[in-house]
């Protein structure tokens, strides 16, 4: 395995480029795939080597990545890629395991109606191969470990804390660390046995569940009583939006926001038709308000932009441009797209604020 952060040498890069121009890379990757789907020229792929149920809605997938995986830091996430009915889908998942050994664990909660999470729970089997992106994200422990780290989590937001606490546990440094976790019920607590084991090894553990007497979810008063010195400690916060909001408000009140590290995955905004939206253009750095009338191409033009275009009827793909974030609708088919992917501006409209690579 290569060292994280190491870049391929210039010779390596120009050889790759020559191979590409001589069409040798297509041949090579085709035949490597036939031998073993894990053999790729650069793509990170991983084999599922274990599937462990955590709760009724949460499952952990143990993955063994190929040699292109460059490691991760505890708390980072990766984009998992699976093919469902011929289409590749990517979703971000936190790596719930510390960087250790040659496997990594993704702990996934089933989302109602979620295409990917349901496929993972119902369709993925040991031995299957999935795609991964490089590990990303800066919701990590600093190299200089803080004296008394505090983790505040709720629901499946516990996964990055599991990785960070796992790293502390491996280093025998759990003493001084505190985890305050919120769950719906005792049976909904992910990795409860591990938490109890870590508590025995010195972790200060507080579990609050909604089926017990007392307030539901994150409660500022209860929390402040549980960890009175929280505003003095480096804190990692991860959970659903309501928990994040109340917690942030408490830290703001105590003027302690600089010590609060947060992570959340924003779910795709609900589609809405015909209202004005904000469009961020990544390359020019401009942000525009569009009126929602007509195609994105027409709206951008009215706002003074001059994107490349051809037929203006969805045929020629000249106006195709990568959508980085947000929800759009294909005006030809009515299909809603929430994932980052290229769209044809002339036959798309925005259903949320979006970001384009223009």
């Amino acid at each position, binding site marked *: 395995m290569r060292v994280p952060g190491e870049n391929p040498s210039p010779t390596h890069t120009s050889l790759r480029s020559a191979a*590409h*121009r*001589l*069409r040798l890379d*297509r*041949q090579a*990757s*085709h*035949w490597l795939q036939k031998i073993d789907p894990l053999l790729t020229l650069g793509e990170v792929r991983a084999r599922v080597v274990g599937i462990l149920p955590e709760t009724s809605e949460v499952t952990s997938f143990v993955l063994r990545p190929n040699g292109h995986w460059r490691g991760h830091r505890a708390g980072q996430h990766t984009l998992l890629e699976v*093919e469902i*009915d*011929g*289409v*590749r*889908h*990517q979703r971000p998942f936190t790596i719930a395991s510390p960087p250790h050994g040659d496997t990594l664990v993704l702990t996934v909660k089933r989302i109602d109606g979620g295409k990917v999470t349901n496929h993972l729970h119902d369709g993925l089997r040991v031995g299957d191969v999935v795609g991964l992106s490089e590990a990303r994200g800066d919701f990590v422990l600093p190299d200089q470990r803080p004296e008394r780290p505090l983790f505040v989590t709720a629901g499946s937001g516990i996964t990055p804390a599991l990785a960070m606490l796992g790293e502390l546990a491996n280093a025998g440094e759990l003493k001084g660390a505190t985890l305050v976790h919120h769950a719906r019920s005792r049976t909904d607590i992910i990795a409860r046995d591990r938490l109890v084991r870590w508590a025995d090894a010195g972790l200060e553990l507080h579990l609050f569940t909604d089926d017990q007497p007392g307030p539901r979810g994150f409660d500022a008063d209860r929390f402040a009583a549980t960890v009175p010195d929280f505003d003095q400690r480096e804190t990692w916060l991860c959970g659903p939006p309501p928990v994040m909001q109340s917690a942030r408000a408490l830290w703001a009140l105590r003027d302690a926001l600089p010590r609060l590290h947060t992570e959340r995955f924003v779910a795709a905004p609900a589609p809405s038709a015909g209202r004005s939206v904000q469009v961020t253009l990544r390359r020019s750095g401009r942000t525009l308000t569009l009126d929602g009338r007509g195609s994105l191409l027409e709206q951008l033009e009215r706002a003074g932009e001059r994107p490349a275009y*051809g*037929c203006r*009827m*969805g*045929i*020629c*793909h*000249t106006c*195709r441009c990568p959508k980085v974030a947000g929800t759009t609708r294909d005006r*030809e*088919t009515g299909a809603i797209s929430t994932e980052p*992917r*290229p769209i044809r501006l002339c036959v798309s409209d925005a259903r949320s604020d979006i970001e384009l690579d223009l």
Partner: protein
Amino acid sequence: MTTPTHLSPSEIEAFGRELDAIRDRHLADLGERDREHIDRIISLAMTSEAAGRLLLHFGIDPISFVLGTGALTLSKILENMEIGHNVMHGQYDWTRDPKLDSHSYEWDAVSPSAGWRHSHNFEHHTFTNVLGKDRDIGYELLRVSADQPWNPGYLAQPLRALWLALAFQWGVALHDLKLEELRTGESTREEVLERAKPFLCKAAWQVAKDYALYPALSGLNAPRVLLGNLLANIGRNVWAFAVIFCGHFPEGAEIFHEAELEGERRAEWYLRQLLGSANIEGGHWLHVLTGHLSHQIEHHLFPAVPAWRYPEMAREVRALCERYDLPYNTGSLGTQLKSVAGKIFRHALPTKPRAALTRQAPPALAA
């Protein structure tokens, strides 16, 4: 545009809506089956390329030479037609597989994909058969309609067509460079050179691959490998030329004038695609080898739908044409080729142009 007079504007709109419905039904159904089809074709192209190269490199007898060259030709045809052309139309963009991505696919031909996508996907598919606007290859190098002004240079066009067939990939690439703009003064030498850079780069690598790298790898067999590669490229050229010229030039396929585009609606665009295209009849493998351009009509109506669905769509389109009493130009490869050859010979001589915009509706060919 000039439209068949037997259809009212509302009937034309209804015809367009029915075509939209056919397209939407197929787009909604995209999935595993399409993926399996293209994967199978890619596998076949890869296997026949490997087999072809191994036979050429390690064989010493004429039989392995013929088989090797044949296999290599087959792989180049599959790669250019059923894979490259269709992938670059965005027919598989929905899979989100980077190796099937229309904007990054680079095909095994000397013309760079980006320039080809512009002249083909935009200029040809939007302005199909519109003289002066459709820069599809035939219209500027050859005179295929009496509406194109004649000059004595066209007397030699049968020879020019033969040359174009043999060197088709070079013809396509040079055509994309718009060298004629040097003559008309629309572009300067520098502009043309700048435009030519991606082509020169791509062509150099392609030539290096087929005529230097692979022959060199084969050592003493170099002349044999070089000749095999040359023949495979020529074989692919002739085939692509034949298929493409059967798509828009057989007798009955109509030519349009720029004035006819004024205020063209989507349904009228559909109609122009239908009237300007022609199909080739044949079995499954003929269709695959043409990249399903044997269904040029369906390809022009639905350029972004995976092409292997065209035979299925053709049944629906044909039934629709019969209901609306519209022509549906189709024939065997031999018939269509004879028809195109006839045009090339006939229009080499001065022929009389039709009176633009005042002609009668074409007679409906389909019963």
